[in-house]
């Protein structure tokens, strides 16, 4: 079966999270993606790990592996005079150029849109720095660890009586790529209809602000500042995360209808406290939420989270385990959906790779190749795809243009 994007070639001049995950989606759907780095400046993911048994190896980083499957990997040293002409030749054969450096890197190499469009007028170029490429803060550094703060999401995360909670993840790196892919695909369609390429200046700051739900309108329309509400719901009750039997085992429960409340009470064995009028309506339950939580947790802590999740879902109550990564790997539903694909990597051995979550009936995503070792596909890309002669290739090697 063919994949959807087999006639698209992408020059993937990206690093870290947002850029690589954008081109990863295109790669899993069949685009030919060429990831560019340099032995003088690696994609920093190679230095982040995690590594098997904590043995650092730039060709065996778990994060690099997850973000770069099904891509070719080449090296080019933009500090050599020969490299620019070569980079332009690469541009000339690509439909899409993706990059996510701060906006001084590509101009420094004369690889910004003004330059690359001269080489390939109908190219679609997407830049995805934190602040976008223009504006007074454009040169400010940042990454996915701090962008939840910038975008307003971090302020809303945690408990009302405490500082914002630690997030522990470059979380917004999983938001911007979906916008980026959508915009690239829309621009490709526009190009097909008009012959025109274009430049997409995506600010992760802006894309991520869309994750704040209704907070912006509530401020702009009502002057009300939303803040942290822990695990509760502003309108429904009960909602929370409750301790179950075992270490760090937690159950999330949302009750948003009276029928779900009755079902929860039934599954709890219809205890006497639950019949009291102060738990009879949403308003009453919200008013006595602390007490309600204590009652529910006194029940949940006697059982395993798996028991309760199944019992509540069977009774029609949205409830689920607060899943650790071990749970994700062992989850029967995610196994059924094939979240993780096991591919043999030359250094790491058999490793699990995350797949994009949508399953397409005619052109399903497919994970075929593990991520490239540093410069693994120099021969293939420069000679077979770009058409460099052997002599020319060697000359570039000797000039350190391919470092």
């Amino acid at each position, binding site marked *: 079966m063919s994949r959807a*994007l087999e006639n698209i070639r992408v020059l993937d001049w990206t690093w870290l999270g947002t850029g690589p995950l954008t081109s990863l989606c295109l790669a899993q759907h069949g685009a030919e993606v060429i990831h560019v780095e340099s032995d003088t400046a690696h994609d920093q993911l190679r230095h982040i790990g995690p590594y098997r048994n904590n043995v650092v190896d730039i060709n065996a980083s778990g994060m690099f592996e997850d973000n770069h499957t099904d891509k070719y990997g080449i090296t080019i040293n933009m500090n050599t005079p020969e490299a620019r002409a070569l980079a332009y030749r690469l541009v000339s054969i690509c439909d899409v150029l993706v990059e996510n450096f701060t906006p001084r890197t590509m101009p420094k190499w004369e690889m910004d849109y003004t330059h690359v469009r001269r080489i390939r007028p109908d190219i679609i170029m997407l830049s995805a720095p934190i602040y976008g490429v223009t504006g007074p803060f454009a040169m400010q550094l940042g990454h996915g660890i701090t962008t939840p703060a910038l975008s307003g999401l971090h302020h809303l995360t*945690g408990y009302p009586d405490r500082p914002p909670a630690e*997030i522990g993840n470059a979380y917004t790196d999983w938001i911007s790529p979906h916008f980026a892919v959508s915009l690239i695909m*829309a621009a490709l*369609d526009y190009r097909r209809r008009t012959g025109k390429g274009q430049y997409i200046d995506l600010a992760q700051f802006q894309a991520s602000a869309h994750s704040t739900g209704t907070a912006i309108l509530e401020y*702009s329309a009502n002057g009300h500042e939303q803040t942290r509400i822990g695990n509760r719901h502003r309108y429904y009750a009960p909602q929370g995360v409750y301790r179950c039997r075992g270490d760090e085992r937690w159950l999330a429960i949302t009750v948003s209808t009276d029928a779900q409340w009755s079902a929860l009470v039934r599954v709890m064995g219809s205890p006497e406290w639950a019949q009291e009028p102060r738990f009879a309506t949403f308003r009453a339950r919200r008013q006595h939420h602390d007490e309600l939580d204590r009652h529910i947790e006194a029940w949940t802590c006697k059982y395993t989270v798996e028991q309760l999740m199944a019992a509540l879902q069977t009774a029609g109550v949205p409830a689920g385990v607060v899943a650790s990564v071990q749970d994700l790997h062992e989850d029967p*539903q995610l196994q059924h959906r094939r979240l993780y694909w096991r591919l043999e990597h030359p250094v790491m051995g058999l490793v699990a790779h995350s797949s994009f*979550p949508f399953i397409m009936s005619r052109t399903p995503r497919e994970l075929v190749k593990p991520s490239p070792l540093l410069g693994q596909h120099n021969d293939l890309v420069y000679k077979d795809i770009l058409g460099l002669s052997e002599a020319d290739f060697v000359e570039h090697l000797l000039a350190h243009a391919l470092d």
Partner: protein
Amino acid sequence: MAYILNAQNLDSNRTGPLAPYRVLDLSSAMALYCGKLLGDLGADVIIVEPPGGHPARALGPFYHDQPDLGCSLFWFTFNTSKRSITLNIETPDGQDLLRRLVASAHFLVESFPVGYLNGLRLGYGQLSAINPSLIMASVTPFGQTGPYAHWQTSELVGQAMGGIQYIVGDAERAPAQLGGLQVHLYGGIEAAEACLIAHHYRQDTGEGQYIDLGLQHGVAAGMGITGPHQSWDLNRVVFPRAGIPYDQGPIFGVAPRHKVVVPCKDGYFAMSHYRCPVAPLVDWMAPDGYQHLKERQWSSDTVDYLTREEREVLDPAVLDFLTTKPKTEIYRESLRRRLPWAPIQTPADLLSHPHLAARGFFVNVEHPELDTSFAYAGAPAALSETPWRLQRRAPLIGEHNNEVYIKEMGLSLRDLARFRAGGVI
């Protein structure tokens, strides 16, 4: 030869890269952002509401706290750039009208419980028989098949079962949900990207297809970021939640995990050690009694690669120093000194942010029915040829019934009255 769909009923006021295409939006709250994004990119998005209004109109918060179907800020947020028709798809006439709409649509997005549309004979099999080039996306909590296919979810349960919640939160409390609406956003943006990937293939071949998006997978696929899923896969290590002190080995340099949330004089700042330069940081601190830090020889140029002993000296000093500084000063200095930090911003901070103002991010949208206008989050990106644009405010219930049913589909006023009386429209 490439197959290119024709523009149909193209609203001349709409602009954007997707202007030739029509989307039927039958989604619940969890996938509404898909139609919004496609609409903001110019597509003609028709949201199909049950008579009486879409259930998401009852979701708070509300304009001036008036719990009225015309005042839901949730509805406003997720339904810009859409038109609205009402239609009862549980009646035979309603199903017939939907089938007629499907014949001229390019995309259909839905998020009913698994099996519901098949039960009405409106599943992909039936609809693609009417329009083989249709792209239909189903967004459900867990996907169309598998042991949890009929389970329910919520914003909280979705974050929990997708794995993100496990690592969010402080040591002293239960894992915390991320604020805002994450699962609701994924339901939209992941469906939109899938639709547009399928559209590329359709433009090559003329063939439509069916997209099955499961939101648990949609959240969990992000757990490769910063390495939790690989730590389990490679080393059988489970990352505890972020507030629990933990040495995560060689990730983000060689140092143990640090606190990102740092109190300052008038709020909180997000401080990252990752690639944070040491020299400009200690230069800034020196005049406030930290000259010794400036004079010290550090083993690395960036904080993330300092030794544990060095971090035990530097970290507490930085925390103390920052508690004496207001947010604006820290932001100004981090910009000047290229420290990769960011203020923990409130919605008010966003609305007054000079960078967002310079980039024209916020869009003021008029609501004539409320006799007011207010600012919406705007373009995720600037597109040079085909700008993202809020085409219109979220529609009123059935606002475009006449436009769609009479002007575009050719129903008579009498048909419409009959359908109204029959509870179809």
